């Protein structure tokens, strides 16, 4: 009996391959986007973990030079001879790979590659240069050094013995020293043994994970959105399939199939199909992630300096989660239907329930749910804080608005219908209203996709506008110069002052300020700053007080994260607390900044010298040449403003490539949702169309009306999507961005973009409606006539 039952149920899909395709494709797409995003996140997380184990990043305190980036080897030996347990590390770049050399004997346990003890082949008379790296990095180093593959090594890094790496880099010094956690008693303090070094605590390096967390949360949110849209398709397909099989189910039950067996078979059938769809989806997700990963990697590198692998690996966390999500989603959609089947009386009528679907109870339920969600969103907006609350607010806002759409559409269509008197048009609007429940899921999907597009594109464009203006301000000096030593610094400054140019020397150091990773700047207050910098909030003579050393300027990130603003005091150093004279915008910077005068900076760091200079000049090429000739700096030490601006803009663009790609995909999924809804509804529509056709409306006219309906509905959705999208943009700019990055962006509107987007939405709906319309045109009259003959 089970077999017969199964065959009967499966025959439905055989006769309606389109529905099967819609179900499988919808679920596959949803799973693809979700698992793709999760794959990217999982890859990034694995890379951070690998970096921590291979290189001890975030685990150990380090000794780093106060100036420059090299430590003489004698300093290391001297420290050890004085009783400091430190371990040498040398770093450099070769063939675009980060080489790291450690000393296996002194390094803290677990550092380096697992096979690294073999590196004791330093004693090999042939002196092979042996490195350890994962497979991708090993390929990059082909011909340069001998590499042993070790998948546990962080991506983009090759690890080897100190001596080996020194030889490869052509250096004989070290980059930094790791401080082992256990130190002997009675050792002298650092200042007496190695005054040119300072301690960098492990906490500063561990912040990388915090900084990149928000980026990954953004990705996950997009994955969820896509999954939700895909689930809409699944829900509608399952619903329609059940509607059409009600007759079959009634027949099976009256033939004696037990209810339990029936529901069991249905569940098994649905979940198996879901499994197949999920498998396809995971494969697609792998492809999508593989395509997007290089851009994500570039973004993370440019924005945070984080290094993640450019190649994707199959990890259980993302494909398993994709599988579970799709099975759960299908299960959730199934549950309601199964419950209905169980309640269905054995001999219930199986007339098409097109009318019943438009029941008043449904409208009431939708209204209540929508009001609740929108209300919660508003409450969260007022009282909530933190990134999670912000995203929850977004979710409530989107879902609440989506649920309100059918209700709203019904009201609007009803109003329009009341105004029309011509019979065809009256019928047209009434028919549209009647179709609304069947199409509502697809329309909700379209609403979400279009508003997400509007919201994100508003945010991106506002950002681009603000960022360009910001870069113009901050990058006012035409030439940037970096020097290596104090001697070069004084020589350069002297030369430039002699030429009568406006010089902007910059003293900088990293330190923890107000409990966050931050940079302290000491600058010479000059007309360039006064003329170009625009503050978010400032006291009347902010620059004067900074110049006098009695106040500081902080960037927006530090101010927001520490809960400070103009007038409050900031703890710059243990003995130094200064009031904030102004808060400046600092877009795209994850770290805080505190800006003081040179005098204050020199008090904190007595031996520092300006290592960076900004120079105002009318003739940049000539100035560059003269500096090379007369001061003796290399060409590479100087960059002009245009180059810096281009790099900044490039980082910015790549940040949003990923979100743009996901946007496009989501819109595609929504369009597909409409198509499948219309196609699957087409069969149900025959009894509604037959009488109208019999009254004289040609099939061609009907088809044209179908297309018009699609346009009308998508236009309605678009009109609803615009305010929703703008609300989304506002939340993103003013709440999510502030929570995630610490700075607020002004919101600009781009009506032209929205109109174009509306056009795309309408075109998508039109395209989706074309095929069903064509099918309608080609419906043989006999089918339409049969409606009257075969009343069930």
């Amino acid at each position, binding site marked *: 009996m089970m077999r017969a039952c199964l065959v009967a149920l499966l025959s439905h899909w055989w006769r309606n391959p389109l529905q099967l395709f819609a179900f499988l494709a919808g679920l596959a797409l949803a799973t693809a986007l979700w698992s793709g995003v999760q794959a990217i996140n999982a890859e990034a997380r694995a890379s951070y973990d690998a970096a921590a184990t291979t290189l001890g990043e975030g685990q150990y305190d380090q000794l780093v030079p106060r100036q420059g980036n090299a430590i003489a*080897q*004698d300093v*290391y*030996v001297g420290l*050890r*001879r*004085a*009783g400091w*347990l430190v371990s040498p590390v040398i770093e450099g770049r070769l063939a675009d790979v980060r080489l790291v050399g450690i*000393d*296996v*004997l*002194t390094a803290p*346990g*677990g550092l380096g590659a697992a096979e690294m*003890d*073999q590196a*004791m*082949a*330093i*004693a*090999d*008379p042939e*002196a092979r240069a042996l490195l350890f790296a994962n497979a991708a990095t090993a390929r990059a180093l082909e011909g340069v050094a001998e590499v042993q593959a070790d998948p546990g090594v962080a991506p983009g890094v090759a690890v080897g*013995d*100190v*001596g*080996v790496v*020194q030889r490869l880099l052509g250096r004989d010094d070290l980059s930094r020293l790791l401080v082992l956690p*256990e*130190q*002997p*008693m*009675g*050792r002298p303090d650092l200042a007496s043994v190695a005054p040119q070094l300072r301690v960098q605590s492990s906490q500063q390096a561990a912040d990388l994970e915090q900084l990149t967390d928000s980026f990954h949360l953004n990705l996950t949110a997009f994955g969820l959105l896509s999954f939700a849209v895909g689930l809409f398709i699944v829900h509608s397909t399952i619903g329609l399939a059940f509607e059409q099989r009600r007759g079959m189910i009634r027949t099976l039950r009256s033939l004696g199939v037990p209810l339990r067996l029936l529901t069991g078979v249905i569940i098994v059938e649905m979940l198996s199909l879901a499994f197949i769809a999920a498998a396809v989806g995971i494969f697609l997700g792998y492809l999508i992630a593989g395509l997007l990963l290089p851009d994500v990697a570039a973004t993370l590198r440019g924005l945070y300096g984080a290094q993640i692998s450019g190649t994707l690996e199959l990890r259980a966390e993302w494909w398993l989660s994709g599988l579970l999500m799709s099975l759960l989603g299908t299960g959730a959609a199934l549950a309601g239907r199964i419950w209905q089947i169980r309640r269905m009386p054995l001999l219930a009528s199986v007339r098409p329930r097109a009318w019943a679907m438009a029941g008043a109870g449904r409208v009431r339920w939708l209204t209540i749910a929508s009001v609740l969600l929108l209300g919660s969103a508003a409450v969260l907006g007022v009282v909530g804080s933190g990134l999670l609350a912000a995203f929850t607010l977004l979710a409530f806002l989107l879902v609440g608005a989506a649920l309100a759409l059918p209700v709203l559409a019904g009201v609007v269509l009803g109003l329009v219908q009341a105004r029309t008197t011509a019979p065809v048009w009256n019928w047209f609007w009434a028919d549209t209203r009647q179709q609304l429940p069947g199409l509502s899921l697809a329309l909700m999907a379209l609403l979400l996709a279009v508003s997400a597009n509007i919201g994100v594109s508003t945010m991106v464009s506002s950002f681009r506008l603000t960022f360009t203006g910001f870069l113009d301000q901050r990058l006012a000096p035409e030439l940037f110069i970096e020097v290596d030593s104090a001697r070069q610094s004084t020589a350069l400054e002297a030369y430039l002052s002699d030429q009568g140019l406006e010089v902007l020397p910059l003293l900088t150091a990293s330190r923890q300020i107000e409990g966050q990773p931050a940079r302290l700047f000491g600058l010479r207050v000059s007309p360039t700053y006064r003329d170009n910098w625009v503050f978010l909030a400032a006291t009347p003579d902010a620059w004067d007080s900074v110049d006098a050393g009695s106040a500081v300027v902080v960037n927006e990130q530090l101010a927001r994260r520490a809960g400070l603003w103009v007038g409050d005091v900031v703890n710059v150093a243990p003995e130094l607390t200064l009031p904030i004279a102004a808060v400046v915008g600092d877009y795209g910077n994850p770290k805080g900044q505190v800006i003081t005068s040179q005098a204050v900076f020199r008090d904190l760091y007595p031996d520092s010298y300006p290592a960076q200079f900004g120079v105002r000049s009318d003739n940049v090429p000539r100035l560059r040449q003269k500096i090379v000739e007369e001061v003796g700096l290399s060409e590479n030490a100087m960059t002009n403003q245009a180059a810096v601006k281009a790099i900044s803009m490039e980082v910015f663009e790549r940040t949003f490539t990923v979100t743009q790609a996901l946007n496009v995909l989501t819109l595609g999924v929504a369009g597909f949702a409409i198509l499948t809804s219309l196609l699957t509804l087409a069969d149900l529509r025959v009894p509604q169309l037959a009488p109208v056709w019999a009254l004289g409306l040609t099939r061609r006219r009907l088809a044209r009306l179908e297309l018009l309906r699609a346009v009308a509905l998508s236009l309605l959705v678009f009109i609803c999507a615009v305010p929703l999208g703008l609300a989304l943009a506002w939340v993103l700019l003013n709440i999510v961005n502030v929570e995630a990055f610490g700075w607020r962006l002004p919101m600009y509107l781009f009506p032209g973009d929205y109109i174009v987007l509306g056009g795309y939405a309408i075109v998508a709906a039109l395209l989706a409606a074309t095929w069903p319309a064509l099918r309608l045109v080609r419906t043989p009259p006999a089918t339409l006539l049969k409606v009257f003959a075969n009343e069930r």
Partner: protein
Amino acid sequence: MNVRLLLCLCLFPFAVMAQGFSGLGTDAEGFAKPRPDPVFRFPADHGPHPEYRIEWWYLTANLDGPDGTPYGLQWTLFRSALAPGEAEGWTSPQIWFAHAAVTTPEQHMATERFARGGIGQAGVEAAPFRAWIDDWTLEGPDFDTLTLRASGPDFSYDMSLSAEGPLVFHGAEGFSVKSAKGQASYYYSQPFFRIEGTLRLPETEVAVTGNAWLDREWSSQPLADTQSGWDWFSLAFKDGAKLMGFQLRQTDGSQYSAATWITADGTTTAYRDGAFAAKPLATSDVAGRAVPTEWRVLLPDRGVDVTVSALNPQAWMDLTIPYWEGPVRFSGSHEGRGYLEMTGYE
């Protein structure tokens, strides 16, 4: 530090299987081998011999605090070569590591250091004598007057030593045979040090005085591949004589032993296999192992029949290469104190 590092320290780079305790039984291919009838040149031979695989400067001391509390102290610098010879910089094939320990009746603290050769972090110079690794030093204008320093997370010491007797050579004029197959090392000692200084313990600082014994040994394959470890005794008798005796435990259950009897004026008598015997009397549960901490030591030729017992049975060196080393007392036919080292107890 992981176990593989341990292996590679004693391993010839072309991956020969490690044998015996700490790989010391591995074949000495490529390295120089000790030969009978050695000729020692001092002070040069106080320094390192890079053509040999393994070498150490091994100091143990029995100390007394001002209130009579006995203490034990150890300072050992090991040189282990991956290949014969020396080179400058990181390519040097010499690996240096050191152990330092302090034993009180209640506590035993041990710590270790590792360093690469060739960069100046560790090394030994013969004249003036200087042996160092990190901030641990054993140095002086000559081998008879030395200062000793070491530090660990919970202890440190600062001592000065002066020799009150001549150097002593073990085995056949310094050629000390370890097995019937002929494995041997060059082995001499300075057992006549007078030592005094300060011990810094976790809670207190103690001024101590006592006697110290410095062993110098180098070879390329000190153990046969059938030997699993050894028990080494250095005993200082009340009348001024001293005894060095060791027995190597073979895998078939038998022993190979040797001993040196040292009179108070430094005259030595070497005893070959069979003359010296040490039988375990009682074991203690030390670091999860059953380790004999009470021994019966016999040297019938000199009428020695003593019971040797550990001052602190828990003197386990919980380091990358683990073994037992601690101060002992003995009584019976003679009385005195000394040091005991037991290796190879798993």
